[in-house]
């Protein structure tokens, strides 16, 4: 059954991919990209990667689509036909694809437990996590504790992207409430948005603090938190959303999150451990791990949420 779902989902992904190539209307392409992301999120659930699925659904199908739609609104919707014949690109793609498929023939079979990728580090993480970290979700323990340096780097990348979009698009405060003319008439949407707004924020907090025990964590929570405000801004206009959460506050919060993360690392040094060693944060190493993971996930969540909103505000405040 699992294999059947896998085959069908991959087939649908392929069809969506080809449709994206063929479509000329960029609005339709943006929506198809959202479907593509949602399909791959479903595939990740089948492949046991629940944390990844949650992230892909929130980011790929949610925020990416909104950014693409915002860009399409700022550019022209129709795609012009290319001037060159597509023969050369087609040849390049075919040759590259054939070479890659030849390369896969040496790979271990799908689902093979003896594949080299499952030896060494991965089995050690699975074996040591209950005793050393004490959290059931191994993805969280690897992300936040064993490979905490990497994650600090990722958070800095997110922060840099926010700074980059801010530098490129700037930010214009608008007196006028930027909103599509038709939205004001959609009473159902406005009522539902108002009802869902607190629930989305609550769910984000659940995903943040339950990330040790179930799928979730700072990245997903930050994105879901930002989605709540984006939904609010879509239904009630950017001006109203800015009154709820100010742009200068977002810029400060984006930095605060990274600083919380780094501060937890430095606190470890001050208490006599290594950078990002959580065991020394409390008397009992496992309690220290819990505390450290909680704090850095909080930092990740704050930065991700703030940067997502900075990016969204940047794109939407560009609309005339």
């Amino acid at each position, binding site marked *: 059954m699992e*294999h059947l779902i896998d085959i069908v989902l*991959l087939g649908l*992904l*392929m069809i969506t*991919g080809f449709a*994206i190539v063929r479509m000329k209307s*960029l609005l339709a392409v*943006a929506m198809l*990209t959202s479907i*593509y*992301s949602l399909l*791959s999120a479903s*595939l990740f659930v089948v*492949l*046991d*990667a629940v944390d*990844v699925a949650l992230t*892909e659904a929130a*980011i*790929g199908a949610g925020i990416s689509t909104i950014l*693409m739609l915002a*860009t399409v609104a700022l*550019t*022209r919707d129709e795609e*012009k036909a290319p*001037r060159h014949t597509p023969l050369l*690109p*087609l040849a390049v*793609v*075919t040759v*590259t*694809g054939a070479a890659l*498929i030849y390369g*896969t023939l040496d790979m271990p*079979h*799908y*689902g*093979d*437990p003896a594949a080299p*990728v499952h030896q060494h580090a*991965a089995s050690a*993480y*699975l074996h040591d996590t*209950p005793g050393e970290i004490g959290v059931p979700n*191994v*993805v969280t323990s*690897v*992300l936040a504790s064993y490979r905490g340096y990497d994650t600090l780097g990722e958070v800095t990348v997110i922060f*840099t*992207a926010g700074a*980059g979009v801010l530098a*490129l698009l700037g930010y214009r405060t608008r007196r006028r409430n930027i909103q599509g003319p038709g939205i004001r008439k959609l009473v159902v949407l406005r009522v539902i948005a108002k009802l869902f707004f607190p629930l989305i924020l609550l769910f984000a907090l659940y995903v943040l603090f339950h990330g040790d025990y*179930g*799928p979730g964590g700072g990245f997903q929570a930050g994105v879901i938190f930002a989605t709540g405000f984006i939904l609010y801004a879509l239904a009630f206009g950017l001006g109203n959303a800015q009154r709820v959460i100010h742009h200068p506050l977002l810029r400060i919060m984006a930095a605060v999150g990274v600083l919380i993360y780094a501060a937890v690392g430095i606190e470890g040094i001050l208490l006599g451990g290594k950078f990002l060693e959580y065991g020394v944060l409390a008397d009992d190493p496992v309690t220290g791990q819990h505390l450290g993971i909680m704090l850095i996930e909080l930092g990740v969540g704050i930065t*991700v949420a703030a940067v*997502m909103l900075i*990016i969204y505000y*940047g*794109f939407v405040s*560009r609309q005339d």
Partner: protein
Amino acid sequence: MTELLGHYNYWIVIILMMTGFYIVIARPNLVKKVIGLFIFQTSVFILFISMAKIEGGTAPIIEEGLSVYSNPLPHVLILTAIVVSLATTALGLALVVRIQEAYGTSNEDDIHVQDEED
């Protein structure tokens, strides 16, 4: 069944990868190019997650009575890669918006023509 599937996942991933690659090199519209890049990125995610799957395994959340878990390491790598992919997509789209404002078009061919006129 596994033998029959063998490399099915990897082959579809490569087809998706090449679909994205084709859009990037063959389509002149810049928004579409960013979307092509996005498709390419997502196909790489599927490649990694397919490799992490273990036959008969379950999600890597330790639970009494379960012994086979899928590999958590690629999950971690891809989780953060998805967030970074959004960062790159957002920056790419922001550049497209600025190019649109500067040239009045987001079509690569038209931009080249304008550049040659100057």
